[in-house]
């Protein structure tokens, strides 16, 4: 598990660092090249050593043959004792001869095995099983020297050796075979040494390559890294950042065009910001300027409305219409102003600890009359204890009012369910209706300004179309989230999740964002 984590961390680091990757590839590729080179070198050196040794062994074998001939030079085949003595002398004679200290000798009688007259002497450590019947057949078939590589054991260690065999005839035509074993212990040692040197040299070379490629990649990656850093700063809003331009190479060209891009980006953003500020101020100014005449009109309309019983029917109806439309205009202006304040980031919330149950309760109380007029039953499911949270109560009640009004309006007379819940980090309210709902395209627009779910439907409450847009701003102001899910003709579920305290982050919502199921 621990190793797995290290592996994952290393993998992550490897993926995220260009330099590390470049370094790894360079070292891996150089490493493979070095292994290949080492392999070839070691193979050819080994081969060279082997063939030299083989030649030497064959040369020595010729000399040995000559020496054996000398042993038998004075011997006539008739003197059996003399012949036996000469045969016995062959092995010691050859063992001591030549430059190689480690020659094993066997002088074997080729005739029928049970001849007592002709012994088959050999060096004590000569392992006769090395001479295979196949090799022996080859030796017997030719006048010349035959050779073969074999493995012998020495001190428990298996080392390569050369077995040389030759036919020999002692006087009176008795066939003998002379076998010599030249071990290649020294050559083996030399090859091992060479191989170790190659490995060590390879490793040192690899480290040097790694070090140099680290230097080179650092040098190459630094400007790229600088560019990434500067673009992060620019992305974070520090638009004045630029890359230093050094020299006139491709990196300098990159820096120049990067700076160029940043310049034009900065200009565009500045222009857009100005435009946006101007627009926001315009909306805000218009809203403000409209307020004084609106106040006068509203006061007048209110006065006329209170006197409406004194008017004839037509005038009375006109006053009623004017009065109601004045309220709508008022609400629209208030919402516009609220939105423009959010746009100008001029909202300062007033946080206090409240019981969410209580806020929901008072929101329900104020909406009850509207629900009754629509024949909509409000079903409430709240926890028994207090659901404390740090909120700007006016804004939260405004959100709830909006959600409840929307739900009742679109519920088509079916019950609306209100739930409250809490967990360690968050509190939540959900408002679920089973009315006309929304399709996916409508859902995507639900929080857009002046958007209405179904334009063909009659407006009954005269909402401003800004309600949800303000609600989502209110929620975000609290570091909360307002989400919605809906399906056509199944209804919609809005869920508001708020952090318990402003210094706490929401881990997850205590309520589900789901529609009521028919069961």
């Amino acid at each position, binding site marked *: 598990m621990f190793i797995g984590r290290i592996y994952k961390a290393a993998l992550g680091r490897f993926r995220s660092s260009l330099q590390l990757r470049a370094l790894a590839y360079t070292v891996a590729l150089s490493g493979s090249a070095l292994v290949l080179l080492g392999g070839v070198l070691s193979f050819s050196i080994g081969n060279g050593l082997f063939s030299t040794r083989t030649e030497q062994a064959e040369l020595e074998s010729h000399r040995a043959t000559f020496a054996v001939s000398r042993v038998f030079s004075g011997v006539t085949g008739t003197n059996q004792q003399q012949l036996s003595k000469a045969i016995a002398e062959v092995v010691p004679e050859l063992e001591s001869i030549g430059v190689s200290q480690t020659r094993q000798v066997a002088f074997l009688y080729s005739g029928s095995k049970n001849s007592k007259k002709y012994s088959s002497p050999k060096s004590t450590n000569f392992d006769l099983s090395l001479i295979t019947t196949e090799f022996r057949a080859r030796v017997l078939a030719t006048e010349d020297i035959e050779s073969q590589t074999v493995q012998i054991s020495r001190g428990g260690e298996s080392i390569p050796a050369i077995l040389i065999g030759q036919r020999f005839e002692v006087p009176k035509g008795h066939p003998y075979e002379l076998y010599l074993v030249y071990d290649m212990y020294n050559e083996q040692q030399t090859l091992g040494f060479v191989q170790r040197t190659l490995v060590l040299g390879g490793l040192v070379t690899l480290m040097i390559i790694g070090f140099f490629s680290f230097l080179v990649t650092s040098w190459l990656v630094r400007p790229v890294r600088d560019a990434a850093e500067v673009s992060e700063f620019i992305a974070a809003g520090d638009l004045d950042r630029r890359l230093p331009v050094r020299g006139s190479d491709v990196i300098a060209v990159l820096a120049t065009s990067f700076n160029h891009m940043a310049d034009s980006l900065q200009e565009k953003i500045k222009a857009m910001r100005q435009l946006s500020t101007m627009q926001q101020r315009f909306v805000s100014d218009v809203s*403000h300027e409209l307020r004084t005449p609106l106040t*006068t009109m509203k*006061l*007048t309309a209110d*006065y006329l409305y209170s006197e409406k019983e004194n008017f004839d029917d037509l005038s009375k109806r006109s006053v009623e219409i004017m009065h109601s439309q004045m309220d709508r205009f008022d609400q629209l202006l208030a919402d516009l102003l609220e939105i423009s304040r959010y746009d100008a980031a001029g909202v300062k919330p007033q946080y206090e600890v409240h019981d969410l149950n209580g806020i929901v309760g008072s929101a329900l109380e104020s909406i009850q009359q509207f629900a009754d007029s629509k024949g909509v039953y409000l079903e409430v499911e709240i926890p028994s204890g207090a659901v404390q949270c*740090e909120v700007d109560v006016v804004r939260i009640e405004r959100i709830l009012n909006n959600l409840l009004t929307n739900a009742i309006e679109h519920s088509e007379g079916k019950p609306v369910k209100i739930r409250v819940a809490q967990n360690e980090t968050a509190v939540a309210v959900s408002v679920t209706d089973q009315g006309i709902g929304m399709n996916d395209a409508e859902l995507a627009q639900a929080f857009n300004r002046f958007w209405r779910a179904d334009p063909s439907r009659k407006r009954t409450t005269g909402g401003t179309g800004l309600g949800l847009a303000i609600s989502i701003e209110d929620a975000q102001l609290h570091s909360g989230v307002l989400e919605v899910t809906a399906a056509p003709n199944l209804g919609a579920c809005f869920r508001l999740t708020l952090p318990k305290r402003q210094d706490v982050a929401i881990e997850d919502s205590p309520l589900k964002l789901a529609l009521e199921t028919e069961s």
Partner: protein
Amino acid sequence: MFKILIVEDDDALRETLEIGLRSNGFDVCQAATGTDAIPVFEKHKPDLVLLDLMLPGKNGIEICHELRQTSGVPIIMLTARTDDNDMIRGLEAGADDYVTKPYKIEVLVSRIKARLRPIKQVQHTIIKLGPIEIDTLSHEVLRNGKRVSLTPLEFKLLLTLASHPNEVFSREMLLEQVWEYTYKADTRLVNVHVQRLRSKIEEDQEDPKLVLTVRGWGYKAGPE
């Protein structure tokens, strides 16, 4: 009959306000510019001032300051700008309450009535809060024997808190009991007036000992 001074530069609105207030049984006097406001106030001695913040001549905040030099008369600001800074500065200058345009005459009248309603008579006692003595009948407040001048609203705020020492009042409760709001209102009204009250009764305003903030909840009158 209560007399109300309307300081408002928009003629049509001023006239409409006058109609509205008169039909609700108030006497009205008017000032159309900031410079007229103080002379008209001194001449008519109104019971309450409705003050527009944006005025030619002298702005509402300056007028507020000047009125508070000599008088504890209830002041309600009429603001077209819901611009928070202006509104807060008005409250800090001594305005008791504010109403944002556009308002309904009923709302305005209920705000006016709340400010004109006398403090509910209680048994005559002297409430002590540290070095402060509050006379519930004469509405006199003494600090170490010296008289402290509080506006009626500030007195009501102090009395409400001091009548129940160590009991926490949320801002909503104070809005309801002191300002007589029946619906959710701007809790900054409370914050600003607590600050004003502290500046008059506390020894060190930055380190209050009498009116204490209970973080996240509200305020309470401090330990005896």
